[in-house]
């Protein structure tokens, strides 16, 4: 057992912190919010140059083959520095998906440009009324001659407004709720029958609702064998979930630091408000929740790479369930302890609050993940 980082990981963390905390931060965040797709090309190029975009990708396709822990080190720093660029939704999720299910030709075509920052990808998997269960998948793919015809609706596909290629889950067999029968397809967002409704997501990032109306794709758009895409989709979503949990941890810790500092400088009744026991205990409760959350993130970032799929599922879902609640608590208390200034857009605290509120829902809410934990077989 060893909870410490290797010296390479310490270096990775230092450079990620330097970029996110010194080079990014609130001002750059606000500036990025105004850009199309909330994407700063310069920042993205920098992230590619550092090798971070290659980190989640396999070495066989121009990646660095980084571990879950390596990825979590990056995303924790991105969370603390309010970095908006779509690292998880645009690289970790589609990158893992292609690495797990893509053919050699698909990987060689898509992953090197992804690693170099020249390609934007998005995965459209969530649907209306699916409670973010990826096995729901009511979108249909009908075999038609040499290809498929795809119809259905996807909800809130993160980074889709920026993407040159969408990866879409669609059912070619079975019925809603079954993993078997789900296939994955590459779809050109400009193709006939594809309609994107792009929007900004509360707290940062962009997404689109996607309507697929009789979209024709050729057989080579299929990623992995027909009807067998679910295992890869589920695993890739677990990688993305573990990564956003670490990102949320970074934001939670930033809120603790801001709040502790504020309690020391804000004076009322002739004294720093940090001298009031009610507020002290609230701050301590935030701290304790963050330490518990850190334990879960450390655990999940290791177990997400486990060869045992149930071990991976349990670790990731337990972590998302825990952090969904803990992050809401930390964010609400940080706003409360800041008083009036906490509910304004002038202070970063309110923006962290938005981000953590969105985090609670994205990649499955607490109830969805608790139910997943409850449904897993128990080790003897």
């Amino acid at each position: 057992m060893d909870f410490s980082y290797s010296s390479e990981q310490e270096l990775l963390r230092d450079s990620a912190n330097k970029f996110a905390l010194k080079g990014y931060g609130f001002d750059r965040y606000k500036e990025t919010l105004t850009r199309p797709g909330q994407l700063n090309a310069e920042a993205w190029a920098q992230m590619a140059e550092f090798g971070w975009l290659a980190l989640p990708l396999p070495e066989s396709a121009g990646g660095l083959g980084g571990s879950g822990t390596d990825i979590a080190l990056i995303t924790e720093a991105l969370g603390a520095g309010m970095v908006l660029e779509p690292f998880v939704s645009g690289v970790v999720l589609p990158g893992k998906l292609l690495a797990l299910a893509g053919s050699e030709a698909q990987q060689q075509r898509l992953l090197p440009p992804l690693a170099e920052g020249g390609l934007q990808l998005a995965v459209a998997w969530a649907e209306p009324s699916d409670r973010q269960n990826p096995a729901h998948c009511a979108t249909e793919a009908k075999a038609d001659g040499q290809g498929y015809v795809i119809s259905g609706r996807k909800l809130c596909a993160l980074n889709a407004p920026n993407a040159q290629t969408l990866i879409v889950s669609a059912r070619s067999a079975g019925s809603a709720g079954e993993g078997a029968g789900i296939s994955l397809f590459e779809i050109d967002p400009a193709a006939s029958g594809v309609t994107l409704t792009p929007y900004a997501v509360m707290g940062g990032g962009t997404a689109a609702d996607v309507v697929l109306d009789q979209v024709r794709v050729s057989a080579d758009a299929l990623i992995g064998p027909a009807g067998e895409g679910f295992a890869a989709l589920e695993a890739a979503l677990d990688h993305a979930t573990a990564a956003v949990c670490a990102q949320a941890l970074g934001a939670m810790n930033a809120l603790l630091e801001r709040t502790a500092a504020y309690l020391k400088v804000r004076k009322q009744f002739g004294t720093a408000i940090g001298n009031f026991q009610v507020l002290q205990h609230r701050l301590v409760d935030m701290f304790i929740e963050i330490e518990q959350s850190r334990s879960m993130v450390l655990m999940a970032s290791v177990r997400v790479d486990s060869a045992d799929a149930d071990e991976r599922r349990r670790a990731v879902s337990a972590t998302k369930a825990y952090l969904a609640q803990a992050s809401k608590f930390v964010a609400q208390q940080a706003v409360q302890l800041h008083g009036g200034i906490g509910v304004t857009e002038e202070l970063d605290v309110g923006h962290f609050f938005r981000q953590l509120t969105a985090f609670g829902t994205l990649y499955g809410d607490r109830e969805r993940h608790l139910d997943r934990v409850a449904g897993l077989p128990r080790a003897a």
Partner: protein
Amino acid sequence: MDLDFSPEDQAFREEVRAWMRANVPPKAGPEIGLPSHLETQAAWERKLGKQGWLAYNWPTEYGGPGWTATQRYIFDTERAAAGAPVGSPFGLAMLGPVLMSFGTPEQKARYLPPIAAGEVFWCQGYSEPGSGSDLASLKTTAVRDGDHYVVNGQKIWTTQAHWASYIFCLCRTNTEVPKQQGISFLLIDMKTPGLEIRPIMTIDGHHHLNEIFLSDVRVPAENLVGKEGQGWTIAKFLLTHERTAIAGVSDSLYQMDELRSAVASDPSLAEDPLVRRRLAALEVDLMALEYTNLRTLDRVAKGQPPGPESSGLKVKGAEMQQAISEAQVELGGLSALPWMSDDAAGHDVFRSATQRYNFLRASSIYGGTNEIQKNVLAKLLLGAG
């Protein structure tokens, strides 16, 4: 980053598990986990003592097995998983380490071996009727008279005093100095004339606690531990000892398994989605506590001081024990209401649940209340003042 125990530690786990399987009586009764029966507890401690595993956190020179921090953790987890009670902590976890650090060679030779062998119980004389969270305000006095101290005062919440042969006691030896500096640490034979015990029944229906009255109790001066006035330093040393054990994670893991098997035995619970979600929520909270505990263990095993993660362990550990026992009571429903009945219908876990739930309300009170723990943590986060 590696979450698994080494092959050597896993082999050690198998060894302990096999021994527990062979030596823990199957289901000694609902009181298991809450030591309330002297004979059961004493027999168990003597058995562990013979094996050399009772003082499992002690080095070999004092009669312990000399295990690493990781081995100690594994041992305690397996002990709990077997449904066996924890050893009485007052001699083993509290006085033992104090004497090793502050005791004279004579004190060590006299008091440590019987503790490691499971032949003697100790109790702790800290709290007083007027001194709970503000422990340093304690008023029991010890006045030097020749070769003796003469002790007068009153102690309260004294767990297992009715089993104990000795009490280690904080007494005021100097009233002229700031309150923390006038306290001394004395060892007192419970049979000394002038020492009287009155039982206090707790809401679990058992006799754990006592009140102790000391009237002109004469204590040999050689029973002073450390120097006169060093008592507060020793008390603080004791509070920071063995931080990985304080969260009670091992016992919570066991009680969670117990709850799970009780729920599985009743389809009306096992198939209720809200019950399943509640169990999952408890499991997730317990996982967070367990890994926080393991982070601390990892630091201790590497010879580093416990990190900031360890400070919240007592608070979260107590809340966890309380939440699991609360679920045992609430999910047990009517099966949890029969009071100390061996015959009533219902799963064992539910039948004993109210006693555990009632008892464990104390877990956020003893050893420094959760509110006091938060005061201490707030100083760390905000700096003094």
